[in-house]
């Protein structure tokens, strides 16, 4: 990766060197160990959730969708288990995005780019595609040999390649397919998709996401992280000297020697490094870098080199974690003979955690206390007030009632405004005069025109507040809104 280049070796068409370079293909070797196990586990969990969540059912009563997680675009509703969100509650997503962003910052201040290494979809799917590739074409050495061989292709090799790409495409297609299931009733849509009854847009999206999955995980791989994704650029500004990054502990590793030579020198009582220059850490790296060169832009902190190195250290009978999650401070401290210190709890992480807790708390509180019956009032602007023939004064309001519950509601409207004022809702002949009653259908809004009239003998002030109370007759739930009653 970072060999010294002689200026004469630069392929120049002018003074600048080559304009572009082909990708150096990476052949990550399989590895086993702690971090590999964590990665397998997280992959299984994430993919399991992604692929199967649309099939989870959730009973919401008659006429409501029974899918646990559903983004219902035509009716602009978002369902998440027991939560149902309306478009005007989009601020919950804002809150979610804030929490997600700060959670990334927090991860970064604790363990660097662990998001990149363990949870990022690009990493997860690339890992999955590599697993398929290994299964079919063999491990690092075989794959390199097969790619490098200039022999004409044998049937066996061709079938290998075809099989690999077929499985890749199958995974990619399933990925795209799972995506569209979040936007419609999953079992129904699956049936429709299979019988070619589904709407065109579903097929288009499956096509798009199949293509992106196949290209990004099959071909682009680590280049997405290196060239395309902005997160690696941002993280440099978020990391600090305490963040635990995958670090080659050069205080312990240098000077690199062979196993035999190291044993000889140790017998003489000399200080030698533990690194035996076996290149296992480079062989397993999914981004193809050498971690021993120090922190690098390409490193996604996945810890696979730690596993590889640990396996080697175990074999040669040296302590583990020559490569580990660590920071430069500790390397310098060890060189000075001090014990390493780890500061997970520090100002930065406390502040991030506090922000997450605060935003999360606000969201949970507002969700728990939000009213399923709501009323918005808008005063007529033109005219603000109308004088009637008998001298009384009337104000008109546009009232929008929101019924977010799963059943129809019978509601009554009261207006506390000027003394002896009357309320009338246009188009509603209520059995109870001055207390109009209306049915709002389940999960819907209705807009009413409401008139408040103050009698002539009692001229109110220029402007007095008027309070609207909406009462659910059955449940006694009250929502209110305040506006003004204006006199001409």
């Amino acid at each position, binding site marked *: 990766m970072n060999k010294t*280049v002689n200026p004469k070796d630069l392929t120049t068409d002018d*003074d600048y060197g080559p304009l572009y370079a082909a990708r150096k293909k990476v052949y990550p070797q399989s590895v086993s160990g702690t971090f590999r196990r964590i990665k397998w586990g997280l992959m299984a969990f994430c993919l399991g959730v992604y692929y199967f969540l649309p099939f989870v059912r959730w009973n919401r009563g008659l006429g409501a969708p029974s899918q646990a997680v559903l983004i219902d675009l035509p009716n602009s509703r978002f369902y998440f288990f027991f939560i149902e969100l309306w478009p005007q509650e989009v601020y919950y997503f804002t809150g979610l995005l804030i929490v997600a962003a700060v959670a990334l910052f927090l991860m970064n201040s604790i363990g660097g780019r662990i998001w990149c290494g363990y949870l990022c979809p690009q990493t997860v799917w690339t890992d999955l595609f590599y697993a398929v590739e290994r299964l079919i074409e063999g491990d690092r050495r075989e794959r390199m040999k097969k790619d490098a061989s200039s022999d004409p292709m044998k049937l066996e090799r061709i079938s290998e390649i075809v099989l690999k790409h077929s499985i890749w495409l199958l995974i990619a297609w399933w990925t795209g397919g799972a995506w569209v299931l979040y936007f419609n009733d999953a079992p129904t849509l699956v049936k429709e998709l299979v019988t070619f009854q589904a709407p065109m847009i579903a097929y288009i999206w499956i096509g798009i996401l199949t293509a992106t999955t196949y290209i990004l995980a099959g071909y682009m791989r680590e*280049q997405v992280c290196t060239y395309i994704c902005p997160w690696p650029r941002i993280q440099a500004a978020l990391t600090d000297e305490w963040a635990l990054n995958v670090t080659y502990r050069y205080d312990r590793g240098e000077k690199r020697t062979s196993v035999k030579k190291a044993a000889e020198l140790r017998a003489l009582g000399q200080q030698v490094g533990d690194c035996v220059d076996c290149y296992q850490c480079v062989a397993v790296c999914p981004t193809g870098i050498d971690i021993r060169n120090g922190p690098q832009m390409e490193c996604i902190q996945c810890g696979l080199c730690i596993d590889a190195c640990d396996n080697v250290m175990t074999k040669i009978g040296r302590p583990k974690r020559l490569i580990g999650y660590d920071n430069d401070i500790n390397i310098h401290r060890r060189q000075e003979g001090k014990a390493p210190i780890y500061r997970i709890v520090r100002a930065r992480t406390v502040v991030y955690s506090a922000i997450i807790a605060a935003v999360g708390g606000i969201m949970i509180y507002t969700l728990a206390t939000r009213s399923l019956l709501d009323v918005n009032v808008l005063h007529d602007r*033109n*005219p603000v007030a*109308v004088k009637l023939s008998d001298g009384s004064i009337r104000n008109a309001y546009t009232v929008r009632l929101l019924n977010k519950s799963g059943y129809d509601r019978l509601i009554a409207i009261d207006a506390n405004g000027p003394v002896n004022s009357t309320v009338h809702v246009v188009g509603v002949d209520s059995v109870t005069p001055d207390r109009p009653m209306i049915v709002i259908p389940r999960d819907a809004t209705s807009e009413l025109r409401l008139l408040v009239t103050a009698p002539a003998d009692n001229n109110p002030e220029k402007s007095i507040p008027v309070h609207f109370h909406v009462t659910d007759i059955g449940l006694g739930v009250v929502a209110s809104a305040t506006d003004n009653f204006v006199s001409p």
Partner: protein
Amino acid sequence: MTDHSSDIDSVSGKSTTGHEWDGIKELNTPLPRWWVICFYLTIVWAIGYWIVYPAWPLIQSNTTGLFGYSSRADVAVELANLEKIRGDKMAALGTASLVDIEKDPALLALARAKGKTVFGDNCAPCHGSGGAGAKGYPNLNDDDWLWGGTLDQIMQTIQFGARSGHTKTHEGQMLAFGKDGVLKGDEIVTVANYVRSLSGLSTRNGYDAAKGQKIFAENCAACHGDAAKGNQEMGAPDLTDKIWLYGSDEASLIETISQGRAGVMPAWEGRLDPATIKAMAVYVHSLGGGK
């Protein structure tokens, strides 16, 4: 041009661009090949775009492209689709009776939305954007109607107008009693004060109520009624209420009596389709003053 290739970064062993800012140099790393290919593809794409879509401005027009795409045509298509979507509902507006429209929340909402838009386009110049009216232009929010405030009456007024020249239009006007020499100046002042007294407004000192009543009975009661309650057949306003189209002060009243009044409301039949006129009638009725 300076020779940059000889400038090698000592740490990475790669060549630099040779530029330097505060001791910081930029590595001359080659671009990824796929990236450059993508860049070239965007250029190819752009050229293709010029050919098939409108792209280049000319002196008077622009290149139209092979697809014949235009955003105006898009708008026409969108509007046609909108009409198609609304087709059933607008048809329902056309067939339902005015009373039924007000009874059905969905139809009422549609009629009010439609009516509001059309009102803004056609009626607001005189009646104001919310139907608040102005001097000489009736306020449509109140409960005082020259030609009647039931749904049917409002519909009729919108269809045929007032003094609009349409064969079915509302006719009737306030005569110019002064200009035509029917009443003399002092009689006009007296009757003006009498009319003010009908709705409880103050009157001029020393005005002769009996004389005013007599003048009114002889000249005005024919249209405005003996009790001055008005007559919607002729568009004669109620003179006993608190609402005045041309003002209630003495000067305005004297002007009205001596010059006469004959405001014009255009007829909309033929200019707007029946369903739209219905929607407008419902909208005006639902402003709150409807009877």
